[in-house]
């Protein structure tokens, strides 16, 4: 393993620094320059994390940090709209902003008619045309909570989505953000940047999707910031079906105002190394936050979910359910932090992490981390790790259902409570399809240990 170098000269040479310099030179606005500078400075200061960092203990990313990721060459994609339908999660219907290797493609995008004041646009054009709309929000959450890759993103990000819902507006139509990585002969990295601002008493549903077209090595490192205004309702979905050779290191930072409701559904099906960092700050009373997750890994893949729910004020409930299905020699990591600040009385936080290990070689590292400074709260957490239930398998087979089908049915059943909470019909139907396709490829089921019941 290479040792960490924290000198400027080493980072100077890094392609990210060159990207930063190019991006910084292209902008006239001082505030954006300072955002980029602050990002590259943080990266320069800290360098890449290693396994000595507590937050990265179980997720080795040497394969990522030792790879030179260049900037994708942006040429007009040969894809046409109808091609999207054939891709997993490629066509969820309705408004879809499409990005190829991080760059907005207006040809492939479909943007419906929204009420006056609603903005659904790509970030780079908003930064060019009306930066004042973005300035109060951009990096305001990620700078505080983000890690190194968030900092790199701030320094070099090129494009992404800007979604603004004014006060009292309800956007019924789902807003889809589709990030497609195309084929490249050498490793490339893209840093999508999404900003979602929901005004008070507004509603919106946003689906972020990440897919890869080819089994090539690339890095996608998106950052999404979500501002949920007073009494607003925001449902967020992230469907990750990157190539199995790709790396995905994503961050989402959310802040919830009084009486707002935010839910996140993070589905990870792809990627060689996948990491999702989510932080939610409950900053107004009676705000309600739900973080749900589901991941499926095979081979030697790693899926790491780090979540933080910060209860800063009284009377907020939060719910969290993460479920993992691991086979072969794959690895799952779950770290669920819940902070309950001194003022946050009557907090009601519930966290569950369940993992299904389908092979002897699969591993899960799960760590609930509750830090409670208030005295009148209810916080529960539970982690279970299990295998398929032999009695359930026998029951299904005894009714004529074949062994493979019975296993897949039980695995699906394990995931079903997360799946059933997905309200976007098209996304759920696609997920069902993808899950069954991937389960059918799973070879290394180990026989569950025999359980014996007493003869009666």
């Amino acid at each position, binding site marked *: 393993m290479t040792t960490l170098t924290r000198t400027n000269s080493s980072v100077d040479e890094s392609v990210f620094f060159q990207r930063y310099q190019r991006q910084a030179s292209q902008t006239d606005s001082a505030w954006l320059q300072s955002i980029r500078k602050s990002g590259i400075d943080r990266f320069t200061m800290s360098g890449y994390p290693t396994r000595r960092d507590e937050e990265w203990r179980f997720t080795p990313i040497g394969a990522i940090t030792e790879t030179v990721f260049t900037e994708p060459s942006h040429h007009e994609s040969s894809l046409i709209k109808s091609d999207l339908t054939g891709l997993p999660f490629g066509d969820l219907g309705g408004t879809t902003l499409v990005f190829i290797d991080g760059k907005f493609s207006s040809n492939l995008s479909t943007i419906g008619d929204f009420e006056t004041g609603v903005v659904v646009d790509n970030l780079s054009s908003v930064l060019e045309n009306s930066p004042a709309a973005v300035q109060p929000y951009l990096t305001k959450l990620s700078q505080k909570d983000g890690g190194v890759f968030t900092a790199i993103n701030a320094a070099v990000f090129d494009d992404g989505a800007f979604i603004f819902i004014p006060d009292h507006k309800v956007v019924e139509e789902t807003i889809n953000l589709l990030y497609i990585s195309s084929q490249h002969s050498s490793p490339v990295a893209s840093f999508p940047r999404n900003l979602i601002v929901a005004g008070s008493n507004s509603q919106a549903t946003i689906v972020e999707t990440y897919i890869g077209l080819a089994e090539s090595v690339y890095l996608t490192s998106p950052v999404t910031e979500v501002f949920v205004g007073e009494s607003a309702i925001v449902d967020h979905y992230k469907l990750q079906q990157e190539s199995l050779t790709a790396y995905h290191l994503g961050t989402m930072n959310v802040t919830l105002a009084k009486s707002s409701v935010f839910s996140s559904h993070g589905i990870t099906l792809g990627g060689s190394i996948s990491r999702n960092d989510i932080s939610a700050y409950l900053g107004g009373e009676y705000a309600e936050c739900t973080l749900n997750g589901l991941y499926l890994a095979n081979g030697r893949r790693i899926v790491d979910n780090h979540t933080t729910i910060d209860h800063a004020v009284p009377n907020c409930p939060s719910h969290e359910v993460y479920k993992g299905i691991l086979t072969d020699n794959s690895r799952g990591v779950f770290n669920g932090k819940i902070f309950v600040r001194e003022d946050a009385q009557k907090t009601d936080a519930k966290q569950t992490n369940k993992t299904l290990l389908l092979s002897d070689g699969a591993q899960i590292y799960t760590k609930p981390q509750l830090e409670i400074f208030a005295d009148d709260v209810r916080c529960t957490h539970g982690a279970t790790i299990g295998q398929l239930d032999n009695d359930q398998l026998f029951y299904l087979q*005894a009714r*004529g259902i074949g062994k493979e089908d019975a296993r897949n049915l039980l695995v699906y059943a394990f995931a079903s409570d997360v799946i059933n909470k997905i309200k976007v019909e098209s996304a759920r139907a696609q997920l069902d399809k993808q899950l069954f396709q991937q389960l059918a490829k799973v070879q290394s089921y180990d026989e569950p240990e025999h359980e014996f019941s007493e*003869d009666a």
Partner: protein
Amino acid sequence: MSLLEVHDLQAEINGKQILKGVNLVVNPGETHAIMGLNGSGKSTLANILAGRDSYDVTGGSVTYKGEDLLELDTEVRAREGIFLAFQYPVEIPGVNNTYFLKAALNAIRKHHGEDELDAMEFLTLVKEKMKLLEMEQSLLNRPVNEGFSGGEKKRNEIFQMAVLDPVLAILDETDSGLDIDALKIVANGVNKLKDGKRATIVITHYQRLLNYIVPDFVHVMMNGRIVKSGGKELAYELEERGYNWLEAEAGEPVPA
């Protein structure tokens, strides 16, 4: 040819011998009751016939439709018409009752070269059978057995039997935990499903169920063997005299 021929079947679990030579012949259309105390091996026999692999068969043979049953996978036995109504039906959270039953029925139909039923055809069949068991339709949309009462679970077993239409039904203590009303409904369901061809093996502790499902033959199991067989009057005799008198007759100590 008999439907089922069990010959000198011996089996053990964790090295402990449970079946010590069971002989049983069942013909189409017959109803056999197997009675006996806890631990006599009744449920083991039922589970081995259905294909549970936690038992080791150490001797003897089982022939079903002229074939070696023990060579068949569990699901193939089911598709060939063997149905076990479980003593303890398992709960399967996340698997919808309708989806499960449709998958099962279509797996069986496919095995016999029949077309799979579409959603409408399936629903029509299911509704008809639900009436038979006086089941609430809402149970269909719930996960398999999850949150069902004991009686609902047992009724659900017989309902599945009604839909899957087996050749050989094995009811493993379907009466246990049922109050008399539920027992009547379940027994009534079994009786209405009689078609003169289906063979049924009813496993029970008590004679009570046999008032409603009248057997052609009654067998008494003790210590892993069938020690006495007779007509339905044997069940009454057991109810009256208990099992101790058979101990002397069979030369077997009755387990405590």
